């Protein structure tokens, strides 16, 4: 019976080690990015790196508290937690503090809390619960209604906070829906293709894309000239795609603000707007690019230290990794993330309960999305969208939310035999 109270029993050690490695990497890189000549101690609480140390200690405590919960608490209270966080999201709209144009913070004493960070966790819980409660073997379109509503509520509320970055994170839950047979693979691929085509249309003149697609069609048509039925089908697809491409470009010419268009234009050549949208990206690429193979060494980065890279401790923390640790260091960080993601997926797959599995996939999806967007943005593959790098970026809310998220899953995994 003593084992009942050992909260560390059966905890996945690989995941714990990866977690500790990531938060440590985050901390020392925040220190390198933000170091202040007159406050050089990494424990100086007046500085971001000192504060981050407090956040880390608090995060680990929160993780331990999560482990102390009874495992059945999470499925049982999934909706309650979800409802509570949604109320906080409404509350922040009414009583919140505005930071960088986003009204998404609660200021409590010296600590700023961003409920949107916790909304991802709550949504993953509630989504897992819905999936668990849906007993039908073959999922129909009707089964999709509940999950979609569940996702739409936080997305809407976070959009209203003017925090577009956090809102689009929720699109990542389609991975969970795919895994749990709510949506077929071809639809997901089609979605990815649509997003890809969408970005391409914004980058390249729409008529070039339409021209290329039409030429491909022409070639295929010549090859398939014996099969008129296939040609008709192809023609239809071509028509749909071309309309889509033209529509996207037309609508976005009308809707996108000039500064938003600029954010996309700088992906091709950041020098078109060096003083504005291109500035961050250009400086970010200089910092990372100048790191070379092995990097300049800990605290030796000049670009990040001279503050050329904006938000270097938070959204652009990867620049410091790139500059000081070089290609080897940044690749290692990417590999650590991939390992963590794959580990979480493997753990998810060994769950007996659908709840735990869906929740595990939810966790992996959210980390994956943050990872992809954040690093993609610093290396100029994705437009600048301000969301943090999990466990690495400085800031309490993000770190705590991801820690709770991860430790809830570890708890579920450690008691996987108790849950059905």
């Amino acid at each position: 019976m003593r084992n009942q109270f050992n909260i560390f029993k059966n905890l996945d050690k690989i995941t714990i080690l990866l977690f500790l490695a990531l938060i440590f990497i985050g901390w020392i890189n925040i220190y390198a990015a933000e170091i202040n000549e007159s406050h050089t101690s990494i424990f100086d609480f007046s500085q971001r790196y000192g504060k981050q140390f407090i956040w880390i200690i608090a995060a680990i405590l929160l993780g331990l508290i999560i482990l102390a919960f009874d495992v059945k608490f999470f499925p049982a209270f999934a909706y309650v937690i979800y409802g509570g966080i949604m109320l906080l999201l409404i509350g922040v709209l009414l009583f919140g503090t505005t930071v960088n144009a986003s009204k998404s913070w609660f200021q409590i004493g010296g600590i700023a809390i961003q409920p949107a960070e916790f909304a991802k966790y709550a949504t993953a819980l509630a989504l897992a619960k819905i999936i668990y409660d849906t007993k039908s073997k073959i999922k129909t379109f009707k089964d999709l209604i509940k999950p979609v509503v569940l996702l739409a509520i936080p997305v809407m509320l976070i959009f209203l906070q003017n925090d577009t970055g956090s809102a689009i994170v929720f699109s990542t839950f389609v991975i969970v829906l795919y895994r749990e047979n709510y949506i077929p693979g071809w639809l997901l691929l089609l979605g990815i293709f649509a997003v890809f085509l969408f970005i391409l249309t914004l980058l390249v003149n729409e008529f070039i894309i339409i021209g290329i697609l039409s030429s491909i069609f022409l070639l295929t048509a010549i090859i398939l000239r014996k099969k008129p039925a296939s040609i008709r089908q192809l023609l239809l697809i071509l028509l749909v795609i071309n309309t889509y491409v033209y529509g996207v470009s037309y609508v976005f010419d009308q809707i996108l603000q000039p500064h938003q268009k600029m954010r996309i234009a700088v992906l091709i050549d950041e020098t078109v707007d060096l003083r504005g949208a291109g500035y961050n990206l250009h400086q970010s690429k200089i910092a990372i690019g100048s790191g070379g193979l092995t990097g300049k060494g800990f605290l030796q980065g000049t670009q990040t230290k001279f503050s050329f890279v904006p938000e270097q401790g938070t959204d652009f923390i990867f620049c410091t990794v790139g500059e000081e640790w070089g290609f080897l260091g940044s690749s290692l960080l990417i590999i650590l993330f991939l390992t963590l993601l794959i580990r979480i997926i493997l753990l998810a797959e060994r769950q007996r309960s659908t709840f735990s599995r869906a929740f595990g996939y939810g966790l992996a999806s959210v980390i994956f999305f943050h990872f992809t967007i954040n690093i993609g943005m610093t290396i100029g593959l994705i437009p600048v969208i301000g969301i943090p790098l999990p466990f690495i970026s400085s800031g309490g809310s993000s770190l705590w939310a991801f820690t709770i998220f991860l430790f809830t899953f570890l708890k579920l995994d450690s008691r996987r035999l108790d849950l059905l």
Partner: protein
Amino acid sequence: MLNQHQSPEIGSRKKNAIIFFIILIGVLYITRLFFLQVLDHRYKIYAESNIQRIITDYAARGLIYDRNGELIVYNEPYYDLMVVPGQVGAMDTTEFTRLLGITRPQFESRLQTARSYSRFKSSVFEKQISKDIFAALQEKLFKYPGFFVQPRTLRKYPYPVAAHTFGYVGEAGPTDIAADPYYQPGDYIGISGIEKHYEEILRGQKGTRIVMVDALNRDIGSFQDGRYDTIALAGTDIYASLDIELQQYGEQLLKNKRGSIVAIEPSSGEILALVSSPGYDPNLLVGRVRSQNYRKLQEDTLKPLFNRALMASYPPGSVFKVANFLIGLQEGGITTHSRYSCPGYYYSGGITVRCRSHPQPVNVETALQYSCNTFSCIQFRNTLELPKFQSMQEALNTWRDHIVSMGFGITFNSDLSHELPGQIGSSDYYDQIYGPRGWKALTVISLAIGQGEIGTTPVQLANLAATVANRGYYITPHVIKAIGTPENLNPEFIEPRYTSIDSIHFETIARAMFETVESGTGRYSRIPDITMGGKTGTVQNPHGENHSAFIAFAPFENPKIAVSVIVENAGGGATWAAPISSLMIEKYINREINRTWFEKRILDAEF
């Protein structure tokens, strides 16, 4: 419930697909990093040459000359000490603060302010550093990474006059920046006067340069050979119509008095002098002392910031008989043959308007010459009661339209800032007070002698003198003669504006004004060798001593100058305003004053 609703194979296929996708992104990113960090050496070069700094090249503001080519507004260079907080590194702060003469907490708080604006964009650390500090600082600047000096210019006025006309320049505020993306914080913008009206011509086009600086804060050349630099274009010079000597003389004449002088060249509408007294030295509203001085001027009870020449509205008194007689002649209320005798007052329906003693009887010319109130009232009433008018309203509106055609009750909307229209009584106004049938010509008889519901500004009165000088039209009074070169006349203001009065009537009134100065109320101010026309006025002032008013033009045959003068609380027009007008005319035409005793009396006067 162990994966009961799906076969394990499908689940595992999906798991593999997801893992594959994750690894795909990872590989893509690592490949991208390999290109960025290992293959592409450009970024190392950028980083080695270290840091870009965006420097604004402020365009030199256009200069302002007077009508004779005299430089009246120019730029004086100075330096702002700028800081890029993110580049501030280890330095000898003690030495730096001693050099600037600031304290350590000041240093910290300014750095904090700059940091909160932007860590990586420059902001002003110390405005307008003195030449001495600049010299000392420039040698040591390399020791203070993150700091650099930005050359700027300030307006300088060699003649401390015409402040209202010049207006002033200040830093663009949030509303300016919101209204026009050209402006950035720290840019200068014309806030009033010529500086505001001609802002786009004067400001030129600022440029930006991206330069690379090394770790020692030294400029090591332009970024990518200046591919992204834009060149600053200096502003265009402009030529004011002011005669700066005349302007200066006018301000001297009104010293220790309150009032205004407006002088216009009738043939062009160009303002030769625009004096509002008390005024102030335009050099006071320049640079870092501007807001402090502005506040002081604002609190001054004599209101030096108030431009009386354009904004003060006075009932013009007898000066307005010029306009009224023109309307009487035009409408047929009187003719040049009309004669009336004046018993020393006008009396009708219980209303008495007093006159003074003067030769009898009077016609339109002698009535103006002696400023006869009786004749004025009779002709005004005759005109309004002409049988061709169906109603009192129609009559008064006709009168008012004529007045407006002479430039009253409206603003000229030229390049003068803060101009006010004054007011001219309208039939609507009287209808409201007395009811549509409650008033008649006698009710509004005070308009006949320029009193009552009537307010005119000094520039409008000078324009009336110019209109008479031109015998029937005026050109919008304006203060900028030419743009770029003296020959390139300001195209905005060349159209003549004809009044609704025939020029033959102007001929009559002009002759009457000539006689006024030769042998009428203005004879005391006659200039021996210059022919001139004029009209005196006494502005009733319920709050104290009457204001003295005079309008004039000269020479009579080929007028070069038209003037209006108002001296507040000075008494009759003949005693103060007329002599000042004649001195202005003498100064402008002869370029010197022969009547020194006459001049001395004015200069010594105080009101």
